[in-house]
């Protein structure tokens, strides 16, 4: 057993900078590179892509990124773990194998984790008594059954560890939880028992700290003036030890910072009840973590406690929830605020003249620049210009498209000083509803499969 391993996160979400992983491979020592490509909405988008093309439905960014780091990552022995498989991990694996062959990476082993996609099993679950009620509202699944577009179980660290044990240099999964991408290598390297709750909780906390990439190394940092080297900000690295203690750090010579404060910022991110952070592998108690500065750009985290995992996995179900459109115009002063409000009223009055109306709670009017983000908190001002942001939501696509046609006409038939209509007519886009639910663990058995590049 190694006495320490270095695990980095180079991708906080689908759309994060490609420089994160590319630089992590190039700029310093590393054992594992974890990459998160999924969000709740992502799976639905990928399912749609797959329905049009059976070879699509995964994060193609991942393959483009590998094109930049192979063969260097392979030569350096860095193993890559990503949930880039989306709703089609096999197709992602095929694309990676093809790329690896092209790059001459013979001997590279590519692994895939499957079993998270339960879209075709929902009726089986329902028939077996799994209710799949909405965790937030308690509603039964029947309310949206006909409109479901994707359903994936959140898979934990043991599946990642199993794929690594099977020899994979590149692990591709579907809906693997963000923390499990980092916890998986720890489980694999240190051989922790699956009921060693404190260690699993420590691994979960480590994964949580780095799962948003640079958001724990100076990104989105309250005291942003203290941060230097923004362009080459270091992505986070966990230096993990077999006893469950770990350090958060980054490569020497990179920008940003790792401080007790930068780590605490991220520990609090998307937090619910901190004493019960629910994951597939354990329940972690974030109030037990001891966080202390231990040298420049090094923070030690220890003492994390955890409890037994629950008997269920979380399922992320997405469904079509109507349509929306948002358009914007810039309104200059004088009287920018008053004129922008008038513009919004004109749009909805004209639509009403044409028989198109929307419920009040399905409309939005924002005067960006006059205190929108901090409504009711920022002092009221009369800025030299505002951006009028106006939108609607409705089950009827045609109504939403009709709305989009009444924004640009304001330039010539509204108050003076209206401009910035470069985006043209906003079109109706699908609203993807998110339905979190639970399913009994015994129904889900992730499988791993590894292929070697010849």
């Amino acid at each position: 057993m190694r006495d320490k391993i270095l695990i980095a996160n180079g991708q906080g979400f689908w759309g994060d900078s490609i420089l994160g992983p590319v630089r992590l491979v190039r700029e310093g020592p590393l054992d594992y590179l974890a990459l998160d490509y999924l969000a709740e909405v992502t799976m639905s988008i990928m399912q749609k892509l797959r329905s049009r093309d059976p070879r699509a439905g995964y994060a193609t960014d991942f393959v483009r990124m590998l094109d930049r780091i192979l063969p260097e990552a392979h030569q350096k022995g860095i193993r890559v773990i990503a949930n880039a498989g989306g709703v089609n991990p096999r197709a992602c694996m095929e694309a990676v194998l093809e790329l690896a062959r092209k790059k001459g990476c013979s001997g590279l082993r590519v692994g895939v984790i499957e079993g998270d996609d339960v879209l075709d099993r929902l009726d089986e679950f329902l028939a077996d008594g799994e209710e799949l009620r909405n965790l937030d509202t308690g509603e039964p699944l029947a309310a949206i059954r006909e409109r479901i577009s994707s359903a994936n179980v959140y898979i934990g660290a043991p599946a990642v560890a199993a794929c690594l044990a099977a020899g994979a240099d590149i692990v591709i999964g579907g809906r693997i939880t963000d923390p499990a991408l980092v916890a998986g290598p720890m489980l694999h390297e240190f051989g922790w028992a699956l009921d060693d709750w404190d260690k699993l909780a420590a691994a979960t906390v480590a994964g949580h700290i780095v799962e948003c990439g640079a958001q724990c190394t100076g990104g989105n940092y309250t005291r942003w003036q203290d941060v230097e080297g923004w362009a080459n900000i270091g992505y986070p690295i966990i230096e993990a030890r077999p006893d469950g203690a770990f350090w958060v750090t980054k490569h020497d010579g990179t920008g940003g910072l790792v401080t007790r404060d930068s780590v605490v910022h991220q520990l609090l991110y998307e937090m619910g009840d901190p004493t019960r952070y629910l994951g597939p592998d354990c329940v972690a108690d974030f109030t037990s973590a001891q966080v202390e500065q231990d040298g420049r750009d090094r923070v030690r985290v220890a003492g994390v406690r955890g409890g037994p995992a629950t008997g269920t996995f979380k399922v992320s179900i997405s469904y079509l929830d109507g349509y929306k459109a948002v358009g914007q115009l810039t309104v200059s002063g004088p009287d920018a605020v008053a004129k922008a409000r008038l513009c919004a009223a004109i749009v909805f009055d004209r639509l009403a003249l044409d028989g198109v109306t929307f419920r009040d709670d399905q409309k939005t009017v924002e005067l960006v620049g006059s205190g929108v983000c901090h409504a009711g908190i920022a002092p009221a001002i009369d800025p030299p210009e505002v951006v009028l942001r106006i939108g609607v939501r409705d089950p009827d696509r045609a109504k939403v498209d009709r709305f989009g046609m009444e924004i640009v006409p304001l330039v010539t038939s509204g108050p003076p000083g209206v401009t910035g209509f470069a985006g043209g007519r906003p079109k109706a886009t699908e609203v993807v509803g998110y339905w979190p639910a639970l399913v009994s663990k015994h129904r889900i058995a992730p499988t791993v499969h590894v292929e070697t590049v010849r």
Partner: protein
Amino acid sequence: MARVRLGEFAQARSGDKGDGSNVGVFVSNATDYELLRRELTAERVRQHFHAICLGGVERYELPNLLALNFILHDSLGGGGSASLKTDAQGKTHGLALLQMEIER
């Protein structure tokens, strides 16, 4: 005792939690943490966010991090892809909390 903006001594981060947001706020010493615990009640935070948070506010304590965590229910206009708001994920709610003035 003087009236000070929370942002002068505290730091914060926020994000989405379903149709609500979470706002974590923390300080760097035990004295300020006791001040946070005393002044930043769930009700006070709810009033501060009256034009943003349409549901209730829950508060959790993390004494190990000298931090409090607030859940602001119904503060994202539906959340996720359903929201029409500019800040559909509550990214700016942390800085909004730091605008609050308290007696210190």
